[in-house]
C-alpha cells in the first residue's frame, strides 16, 4: 500500500492535470468568499473557506482515485498487477490514499488564500477535533474512491460519469451547506432560517468562528452601496 502511495505521488508530481486542484482552489475560495463578503454575512465565511477543500477532495477522489484501475488498464499494467502477489485492493487504496493526501493540501491552501487574499482568518476552537474530522473525511473519501475505481473500470466513457457525479454530490454532500438549504429542503424545514450560518442570535457555526479584521464594517461601493474587496482592516 505504501509503495502504491509513493508511486502515485511520483506520478502526480509530473502530471499537470493531477495538480489541477491546487490551481483551482484559490479560484473557488475567492469565488465563495466574494459571495459571502458581498452578502455581508461573515458567519458564513467558514463555509466559504472549507467548501473548496471538500469540493477538491471529492473531485480528486473521483478523478484520480476513481480512474486508477482504468489507468492501469490503459497503461497495460493491469495484467501485471493481477499477476503480482500483492492485493489489487491494497494497491488501489494506497494510490487513492495519496490522492486524498493531495486533496488535504487544498484545505490548507484555501485557508492561506482567505488569509492572504481577503484578510480572513478562521479561529479554530477545537483543533484536535477538526484534524480528526478532516482525517476521517479523507479516509472515508479514500474508501469511496476505491469503490469507484472498481465501478468506473466497467464504463466505456469514464469521463461522462466523472462529470455527472460532481455538482449533484456537492449539493447532496453539503459541501457548502447541508441539504436543508436546497429549495426542497428549505420548504420542508420551514424556510431559509433552517440553514446553518444564517444570521441568527444563536451565533456561529460549530466548526469554528470566523474572525476577520474589520468584521461587520464593509466599505461601501460608491455606486451600489455594496461591500467591496478587500475588506477594510481595523
Amino acid at each position, binding site marked *: 500500500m505504501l509503495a502504491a502511495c509513493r508511486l502515485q505521488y511520483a506520478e502526480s508530481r509530473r*502530471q*499537470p*492535470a493531477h*495538480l*489541477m486542484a491546487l*490551481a*483551482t482552489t484559490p*479560484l*473557488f475560495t*475567492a*469565488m*465563495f468568499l*466574494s*459571495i*459571502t463578503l*458581498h*452578502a455581508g*454575512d461573515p458567519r*458564513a465565511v467558514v*463555509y466559504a473557506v472549507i467548501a473548496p477543500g471538500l469540493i477538491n477532495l471529492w473531485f480528486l477522489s473521483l478523478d484520480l482515485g476513481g480512474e486508477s484501475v482504468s489507468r492501469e488498464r490503459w497503461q497495460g499494467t493491469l495484467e501485471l498487477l493481477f499477476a503480482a502477489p500483492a492485493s489489487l485492493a491494497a494497491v488501489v487504496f494506497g494510490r487513492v490514499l495519496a490522492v486524498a493526501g493531495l486533496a488535504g493540501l487544498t484545505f490548507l491552501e484555501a485557508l492561506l488564500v482567505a488569509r492572504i487574499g481577503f484578510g480572513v482568518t478562521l479561529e479554530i476552537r477545537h483543533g484536535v477535533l477538526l484534524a480528526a474530522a478532516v482525517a476521517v473525511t479523507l479516509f472515508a473519501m479514500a474508501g469511496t474512491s476505491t469503490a469507484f475505481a472498481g465501478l468506473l473500470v466497467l464504463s466505456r*466513457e469514464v*469521463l*461522462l*460519469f466523472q*462529470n*455527472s*457525479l*460532481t*455538482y*449533484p454530490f*456537492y*449539493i447532496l454532500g453539503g*459541501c*457548502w*451547506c447541508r441539504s436543508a*438549504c*436546497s*429549495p426542497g429542503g*428549505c420548504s420542508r424545514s420551514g424556510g*431559509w432560517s433552517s*440553514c*446553518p*450560518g*444564517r444570521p441568527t442570535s444563536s451565533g456561529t457555526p460549530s466548526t469554528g468562528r470566523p474572525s476577520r479584521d474589520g468584521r461587520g464594517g464593509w466599505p461601501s*461601493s460608491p*455606486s*451600489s452601496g*455594496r*461591500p*467591496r*474587496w*478587500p475588506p477594510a482592516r481595523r
Partner: protein
Amino acid sequence: MTAAVRVLSQSARLGIDDFRSVYTWRSWLAGWLLRMLAQVAFFGSIGLLVGSRAEIGYLLVGNAVVLVCLEATIVVISVSVERFQGTLPLFAASPASPMLVYLGRGLHWMGTGLATSAVTLTLLPPLFGLPLSPPRVAACLPVLLVIAVSSYCYGSFLASLVARFPQFNWLALNVGYLAIMTVAGVNVPVDFWPGPVQAVANLLPVTHGLLAVRRLLDGGGLAAAAPQVAAELLVGAGWLAASWLSYRRFFRRSRVTGSFDVG
C-alpha cells in the same frame, strides 16, 4: 472564402461526430444537463444561505448564463485531442489552413452551451421561487449567442496555447472558465473587486454580455442592452484575433523546428 467555409464546416462536423460518439440523448440529458442544473442549483443554494431574494436571483442568472462560456471553452479539449491523435503533421502538409480546422473543431460546444443555458435559465429560477418571464428569457437568447461566440474565441485562444502543451488541457480549461466565474460579474458585481481585477474582467468574455442579460431580465429594452452587447462582441473579436495570431505563430514554429510530435 468558400473553401474556408467548407473547411470550417467539415471541422465542425468532425466535432459533432466526436460529441455523438460520447453522448446519446439519454446520457446528455441525464448526465450532462443534470450536472449543469446541479451546478447552478449549488450556487443558488449558497444564495439561500447568505442572501436575499435579489442575491439568489443574481447568483442563479449569473451561473446559468456562464454555462454558455463553460461549454464553449471546451474547444480546448477538442484541440488537445487532435494533438494527441498526432494529426498536426497532416494538417501542416495539407493545402487547407490548419488554423481553420482548429478554430472549427469545437463549434458544436456553442450550440450545446446555448441549449444548456437556456434550459437552466427557464427551469431553475422557478424552483427557487423566482420565476422569470418566458418572453424576457427569449429576448436574452441572441445575447446568449453573442456570449457563446465571444467565449468560443476566448476558448480558442486558450486552445492555441494548449496546442503547444497538450498535457495542460484540463488545467487550462478549468482555470480559464473558473477565472471568469470568479471575476466577470457571475457571482458578485465586477465593482466588488479592486481596480486591476476589474480591468481584467472587462477584457474577459461574459462580463459585458451578462450585464446585458441582467438588464433585459430586469425589463430594460434593447437600448439598455445594446452597448454591453457591442462591448461583448468587441471582446470576442479581440480574442479571435489573439487566437489567430497565436495559432499562426504555433504552426510557423512547428514547420520551422519540425516539432510536430505531441507535447
